[in-house]
């Protein structure tokens, strides 16, 4: 069975390392890569009336920007990597949505980068890595 590796990607150095790490594994195991970018979003947040009106327009702009500034350059750089690469772009809670993407793409592993800092915020509210480790239904690799 071929391997499908889902990599969370936000353009940071840590995310690049995660992509590189997953790419090397995919090459060895004859697998493919799904590079996923999640735009943080909660349907229970509060918006002003003006934000409501412009939401659809903003969403379109945000998706275009993510596609153009993040995913497209990465795809271009991986063109000759010798591994099939796809992208996924979604709104939602980052860790939950990464799990969803893995589920839909038949992912066998999730890779994410970690920036190495442990902030007060992540101690209280939990980090993406921590939440993924607890909720994912496939193995998760955290690349430092």
């Amino acid at each position, binding site marked *: 069975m071929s391997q499908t590796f889902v990599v969370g990607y936000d353009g940071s150095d840590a995310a690049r390392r995660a992509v590189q790490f997953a790419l090397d594994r995919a090459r060895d195991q004859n697998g493919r890569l799904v590079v996923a970018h999640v735009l943080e979003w909660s349907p*229970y947040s*509060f918006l*002003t*009336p003006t934000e409501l009106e412009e939401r*659809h*327009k903003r969403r379109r702009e945000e998706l275009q920007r993510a596609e153009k500034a993040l995913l497209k350059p990465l795809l271009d750089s991986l063109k000759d990597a010798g591994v099939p690469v796809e992208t996924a772009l979604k*709104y*939602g809670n980052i860790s939950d949505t990464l799990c*969803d993407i893995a589920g839909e793409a038949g992912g066998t592993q999730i890779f994410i980068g970690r920036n190495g800092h442990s902030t007060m915020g992540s101690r209280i509210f939990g980090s993406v890595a921590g939440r993924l480790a607890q909720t994912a239904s496939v193995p998760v690799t955290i690349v430092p």
Partner: protein
Amino acid sequence: MTNTMTRAAFVAALSLGASSPALAQTLDEKVNEIFASSTGWFVDFIFSPFPGTSFPWIVAWLVVAATVFTIYFGFIQFRAFPHSIALVRGDYADPDDAGEVSHFQALATALSGTVGLGNIAGVAVAVGIGGPGATFWMILAGLLGMASKFTECTLAVKYRNEYPDGTVSGGPMYYMTKGMAQRGLPGGRILAVMFAVFCILGALGGGNMFQANQAHAQITNVVGNYPGWITGVVFAAIVFAVIVGGLKSIARVTEKVVPFMGVMYVSVALVIVLANYDKIGWAFGQIFAGAFTGLGVAGGMVGALIQGFKRAAFSNEAGVGSAAIAHSAVRTKEPATEGFVSLLEPFIDTVVICTMTALVIIITGQLVSDPETGRYVLAEGGKMIATVDGNTGVALTSAAFSSTFGWFKYVLALAVILFAFSTMISWSYYGLKAWTYLFGEGHIKELIFKLIFCAFVVVGAAASLGPVIDFSDAAIFAMAVVNIAALYMLMPIVRDEVNGYLSRLKSGEITKHR
């Protein structure tokens, strides 16, 4: 030389200090006078009673409409209540639409425009004049109003304008013109223009001046008296920063704090009610008895009924058409879903929050009654029930809550100010939509309205309560006159829409996504 100059400056400063309160006083009074004399005729017309009675025709207009919609849609507010909750929870939301406006967000934004002073000050006024019985009529009007809200919000989504850049504009103006044209009825455009005019007045009145006025009253309650225009200028500057300067951070903070305040308000009220659990039965007894006998309030049963109906309508705005503007932005393929979601609004606003205020006032014994007869004692003048400390309006609510939790008056003051501010932001948007409907969209045109809006904040804070509250109520009710007329003509369209949706829901064509 230096000494003389210093002394002269000191004397000048003193006289300036002495003359400025007097100057401000006359300014406040002047604003008040001009305001009262220029709006009086309009207020008189809207609140004129049926000949030979004291029952204002406008109150009957709203309640009859709510009753008609309730019957016409087969008690939709009760039948669809569980489905409404499921929609707000996001059970039917397509995950691929994540990032678009959710039902929850549209509801929360519309609620932050309606939850506010009506729930705190308005209810105190209603109970103070109409007695506990007013609560019964208020709850009834709230339950019926759910059907009105449902009708207008379904239409608002169905007939909104969607522009190529992805923004939307919706509201009664659009369903009046497009909906009535579709039914082959004349006059849609005239109704829409009238609605837009009243909406602008309502935005400047109830959505602005009343809020500024009450916010100022709250601040003076806490820090002592000072001229209203100062509060007005400060508020106007903040509103200006948000609506003209696009300073989203302030708006965002408010939008986050307001729901928190709402939940806290209801929780504290609940604690007070539960702490007096032995009086709950008695309080409801008072509410029911007062609803039908009046228990000695001015105007008797009709007095209680008018106050209850009036405050419910002013608080939840069902039938007014304002919330239809906020709800029209949601991204849904099914207009009926937004109608279902919006019917929760009068429920939360009136049936839950307003009732809590009323219960706290009644249970904490703020209203003075004669222990012998059980009838309420009227204050001097005979129009209002005497209260323990002679409080009315916000002060009455504040006294009721503070009798259990002394610190709550500060929280309440902050809540009133924040509610006032968020209501202003919502209404500035409603007013703007009406304005652009009349004059077209464009940066300069929009800026003119926003500047007028800010100027009225100052006027509202400086004027005394009487003329302002009358004009606010009148302008908002005038919107309802036009809006409900259109709703009657368009209700068959809503029925088709809802029946279609419900049958697809039943057949399983529309399914839950989680």
